[in-house]
């Protein structure tokens, strides 16, 4: 099928298209902030632009200046060009996703700056302010995979703001399915309220991604919850497949993606939204996210659209402080 190619052209065009696709994928990763495609790594978007632009520019420059003697001779049929381009695209995609998975594994096991907390069912990390006053209680739930949002930074910020913070990790002590997962947050809330130095005025739940779905669902049935803050909830689990590569590598997506989808499908936080009318709700959506929450999710809630994780953390911490002052 490829007999029309001038000798030497097949491998040269394959290399050209491979490098060009690799460059375009890096530009896409840098522009849309996609961890799963970013060869320079998480948050190094400027390097991504430089690498992508460099690869794309070099590929074009090399091919159209050094391979001219093969370009300006008869030979190529469109079908062949398409076949070789498709092969190069698949190779570049596979190389990018594999390399990113190997070079930048998830920072899943975040540093443990607090003490381990064991409740039934579940485990977490608890952190308290230094003084012995009564402090507002907050429970923080991570996403799956948990490298997407820096939960430990949020916990640190809440503690600096005067809260006791218990983070619940959905993945650390093994996968948990729906509906068993529903028991985790009530158990965490009960554990937290039994701790010394914790105010009994109500717990504030904060969740990221599918952890946010769980927080919304738990708040709809737990009267001890005073408010819920949700960061990038999962309103449409069936549509979030590619979006998982925004904050995780392909390896992590393959490992946790199905569980995340099953949890989001089971939790259906939108359906349970009406039960939260008397509770304070904050929805934080990242502007670069897959989709902003629609009206069904935002009804009666405060909504904040932010650009960075740091901005999201600050917005949640301010909201918790305002809420705690009213309790």
């Amino acid at each position: 099928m490829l007999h029309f190619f001038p000798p030497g052209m097949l491998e040269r065009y394959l290399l050209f298209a491979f490098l060009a696709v690799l460059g375009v994928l890096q530009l896409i990763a840098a522009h849309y902030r996609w961890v799963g495609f970013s060869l320079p790594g998480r948050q190094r978007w400027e390097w991504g632009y430089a690498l992508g632009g460099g690869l794309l520019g070099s590929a074009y420059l090399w091919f159209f200046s050094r391979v001219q003697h093969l370009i300006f001779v008869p030979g190529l049929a469109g079908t062949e060009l398409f076949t070789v381009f498709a092969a190069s695209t698949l190779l570049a995609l596979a190389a990018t996703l594999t390399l990113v998975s190997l070079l930048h594994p998830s920072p899943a096991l975040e540093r443990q700056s607090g003490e381990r907390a064991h409740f039934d069912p579940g485990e977490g990390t608890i952190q308290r302010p230094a003084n012995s006053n009564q402090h507002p209680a907050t429970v923080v739930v991570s996403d799956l995979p948990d490298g997407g949002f820096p939960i430990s930074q949020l916990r640190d910020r809440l503690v600096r703001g005067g809260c006791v913070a218990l983070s619940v990790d959905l993945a650390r002590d093994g996968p948990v399915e729906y509906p068993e997962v529903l028991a985790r947050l009530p158990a965490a809330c009960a554990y937290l309220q039994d701790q010394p130095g914790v105010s009994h005025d109500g717990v504030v739940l904060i969740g990221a991604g599918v952890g946010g779905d769980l927080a919304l669902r738990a708040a709809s049935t737990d009267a001890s919850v005073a408010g819920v803050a949700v960061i990038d909830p999962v309103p449409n689990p069936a549509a979030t497949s590619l979006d998982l590569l925004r904050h995780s590598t392909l390896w992590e997506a393959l490992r946790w993606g199905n569980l995340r989808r099953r949890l989001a499908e089971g939790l259906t936080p939108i359906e349970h939204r009406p039960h939260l009318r008397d509770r304070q709700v904050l929805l934080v959506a990242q502007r670069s996210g897959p989709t902003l929450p629609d009206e069904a999710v935002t009804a009666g809630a405060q909504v904040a659209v932010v650009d960075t994780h740091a901005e999201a953390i600050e917005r949640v911490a301010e909201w918790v402080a305002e809420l705690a002052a009213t309790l």
Partner: protein
Amino acid sequence: MSLDIGLFRLINDLAGHNALFDSVARLFVNDYFVTTTLALLLLVLWFAPGAPARRRRHQRTFFETALSVFIANIVLKGINLLYFRPRPFMRLDVTLCFYKPSDSSWPSNPATFAFAFATAVYVKHHRIGAVMYGLATIFVLSRVYCGIHYPLDIVTGALLGSLTAAVVSRSSDCVNPIWDWLIGVGRRLYLA
């Protein structure tokens, strides 16, 4: 036909006088530059973020574009079997900046390909589609500038490609289940 040759003369006579123009034309006229760039733009469309329905529409466009190009190519081959128009350099004294293709001049194969591509995308995504139309236009004009196509060849090719893409896009309801199945496979691999 004399208008066609007149227009050809008008454009082709510009060739060979300005080294910069000739270099730019040689960059665009070849079989690789524009075609590869169009394919890369289609890749960007596949990964462009957005609400689920919008993303699905973009990803369907990916397959609709491939189908449009495929059908347009079949129609073109059929026309080529029935009618052969000699290239300008076979009949006229032209300034040639490219190799001598041996297939029929009418309708233009690159014009059919590039305009099928651009129209299929433009229907669903105006911004990327407009960039593709720009590239396609420079591509086909460079074919006349370099002496390998008459203007009528490219106009007919562009119409054939655009019409095919518009028909494919209009009748997309019939094939959407196939595209959705393929997108579903991509979703299972976290690539759609």
